[in-house]
């Protein structure tokens, strides 16, 4: 574990003791979470397992087969043993593949819980083997992709992360190409509004989304193929990203890995705070979802930026830092290596704040120094942007400056229409041109400048860190759940026994088993 900036000294003159205390408290908080969620699974975690066993497709009513299968077992009260148990048993008893089993269940031809039960050991072995095959297959695809990335050349940080959000996957392809042509490194296919709330993943290509395009496996494939083609043609690899967040975190993680997505926004807190998803449900789903992302080499992006969209950016700064420490530990607890943990941060201080740029610079530098081995996903000003396109573009220019000066890992680009629309095709290009200009014109600025000892920047960073420490130590006392109830993040309060998806939490029974978790766990401690 590295606790200091690589090479150089701290530009912010941070106290290593305070940092260590923060990390310590965050570890404690993450451990408590692990304890709290142990002994539970969720319908979506189990659906993730079925997907990793090869189940895909939807029934005549458009219900995805993973849902049909898991609901079938859940209705019969069997989910406490884990879906793998029942599928494994059915494989032995019927000699069918998991997909065939799902189809049979869907057709009403098979009752999984009514079959004769094979020996537990045999079931485990059978299903683990099936799962292992599938993991190797995906890993194989990932290795091919890694090779492609290396062959085409990987862009240097900060990677330019650009959203597309037309609602129509085919239009997204057009936008994505324009983004690629203008130098975008990562295209993030933003989801249709409220997909978070669906307790299933829609099936097939979609053209009717609002504020984004549904995350479906077919849509993922269409985007990936289009961008692979572009990448080969232009000799530059373009990454893809989407969202795991919501009620289907682990399933989407599986789909993304299968379709060769490189990044995934993965943060339960978003769903909890802004979509009113139950806290425990979110945290269980996140644990497994991140594990899957981590295992397949996918970079996860956390969502601290969101807090600054509802809380004041200066007041809430310590909560962002605290959340980064917690998210970092939670991601590690899922086995995600630091290089794949892109913690969230945002440039959201209000336009009229005197010395706002200095505070932003301090905060951005702080994140880099606290997590030197993690890329950071740095988000543009959005909250205070309005219909004055030029005002937004000016704010984006300073945002770009702070990004390059502090060497962020991933930067979501700002666009002039931020305060009005999901951006029009040329707005993304204008945004990227701004990034290009600033990143190049200020390339070595970070190296060049030192901050005045005890000046505004250092003092601000130290104050934010101190605030984070206080907060973390408080949360370590009360627990994360209590903290969320106390509106610690984003000024939003949620209670542990409220929220969507709570009915999908399942207490595991003796003999529960999850081959995905086991295989991945083995791998990460091998």
């Amino acid at each position, binding site marked *: 574990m590295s606790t200091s900036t690589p090479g150089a000294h701290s530009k912010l003159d941070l106290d290593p003791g305070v940092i260590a205390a923060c990390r310590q408290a965050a570890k404690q908080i993450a451990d408590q979470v692990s304890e709290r969620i142990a002994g539970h699974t969720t319908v979506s975690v189990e659906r993730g397992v079925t997907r990793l066993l090869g189940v895909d497709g939807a029934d005549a009513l458009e219900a995805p087969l993973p849902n049909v299968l898991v609901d079938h077992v859940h209705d019969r009260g069997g989910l406490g043993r884990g879906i793998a148990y029942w599928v494994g048993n059915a494989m032995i008893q019927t000699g069918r593949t998991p997909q065939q089993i799902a189809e049979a269940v869907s057709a009403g031809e098979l009752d999984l819980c009514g079959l004769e039960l094979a020996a537990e050991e045999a079931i485990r072995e059978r299903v683990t083997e099936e799962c292992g095959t599938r993991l190797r297959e995906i890993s194989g695809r990932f290795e091919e992709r890694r090779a492609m990335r290396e062959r085409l050349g990987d862009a240097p940080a900060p990677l330019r992360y650009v959203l597309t959000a037309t609602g129509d996957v085919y239009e997204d392809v057009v936008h994505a190409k324009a983004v690629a*042509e203008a130098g975008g490194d990562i295209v993030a296919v933003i989801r249709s509004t409220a997909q978070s709330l669906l307790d299933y993943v829609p099936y097939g290509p979609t053209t009717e989304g609002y504020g984004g395009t549904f995350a479906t496996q077919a849509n993922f494939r269409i985007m990936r193929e289009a961008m692979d083609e572009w990448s080969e043609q232009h000799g530059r690899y373009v990454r893809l990203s989407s969202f795991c967040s919501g009620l289907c975190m682990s399933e989407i993680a599986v789909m993304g890995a299968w379709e060769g997505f490189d990044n995934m926004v993965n943060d339960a807190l978003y769903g909890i705070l802004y979509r009113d998803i139950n806290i425990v449900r979110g945290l269980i789903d996140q644990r497994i979802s991140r594990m899957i992302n981590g295992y397949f080499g996918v970079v996860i992006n956390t969502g601290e930026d969101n807090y600054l969209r509802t809380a004041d950016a200066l007041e809430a700064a310590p909560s962002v830092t605290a959340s980064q420490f917690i998210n970092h530990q939670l991601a590690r607890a899922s086995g995600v290596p630091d290089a794949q943990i892109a913690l969230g941060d945002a440039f959201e201080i209000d336009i009229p704040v005197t010395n706002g740029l200095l505070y932003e610079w301090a905060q951005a530098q702080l994140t880099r120094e606290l997590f030197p081995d993690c890329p950071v996903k740095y988000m543009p000003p959005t909250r205070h942007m309005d219909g004055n396109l030029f005002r937004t573009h000016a704010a984006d220019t300073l945002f770009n400056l702070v990004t390059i000066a502090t060497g962020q890992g991933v930067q979501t680009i700002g666009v002039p229409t931020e305060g009005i629309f999901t951006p029009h*095709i040329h707005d993304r290009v204008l945004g990227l041109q701004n990034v290009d200009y600033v990143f190049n014109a200020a390339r070595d600025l970070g190296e060049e400048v030192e901050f005045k000892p005890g000046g505004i920047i250092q003092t601000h960073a130290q104050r934010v860190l101190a605030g984070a420490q206080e907060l973390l130590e408080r949360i370590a006392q009360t627990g994360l759940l209590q903290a969320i109830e106390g509106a610690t993040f984003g000024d939003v309060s949620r209670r542990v026994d409220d929220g969507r998806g709570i009915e999908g939490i399942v207490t595991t029974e003796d003999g529960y088993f999850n081959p995905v978790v086991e295989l991945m766990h083995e791998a990460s401690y091998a």
Partner: protein
Amino acid sequence: MPREIDLTAVKPYADHRGDGLVQLSFTLPVPYSLAARKAALELAGKMGFDEPEVVHYEQLTEGYTYFVMYGACAHTVDFTALEGEGFNIEYMTEDEIESFAAEHVGRKIVVVGASTGSDTHSVGIDAMLNLKGYHGHHGLEGYRSFETYNLGSQVPNSVLLAKAIEVDADAILVSQTVTQQNLHVQNLTELVEMVEAEGRRREMILACGGPRVSGELAKELGYDAGFSKGTYPHHLATFIVRELAARVASTT
């Protein structure tokens, strides 16, 4: 001597009376080419621009070309016909609203609000209703004359309406922020239809708001008023108390 402005035939102004200059930008789904440039000029001509000019154009991706243009607008508008509507609608202060309500309504005014449909943007409706309010002006919750129910975000229209009926609301207040493909128009229209289906339209004030809502749009959709960026709680409250006072007056 300075040239006079003819308010019956107003044109855009850049640096000389009547120059009519307007800046435009857009993308055409055609390949980057001289023909694309001509297409843009032709389009601007159809919009009624004299001497349209492309000052910048570039390829976005194959088959898509972006343009920045200027042109001299040939159309004019008769401003005198519009002048009636001043800008400074006289909004009352919180205190004035309280006493106006006490005098003209004489009971608590019940309002129910939400951000509806799949919209999770709650900051707008919270700004209007919650005690904290907006930029130092507190929300209706802080007014003695109002009884406020803020159902938050992602609220189905049916739930919002049911609550309004339950508490016998004087006004339903809707916020809409996600507007891509006119999602807000769909959501807003659905609510009006539901209220009408319940036969409640006459007895309830319906107001909506959001960054891309306008008074015109709201009225077109069957609302009594629409509010956009820059709205403060006392703007909304002024509207409600006046409207309600008028209704009270007309029914007595």
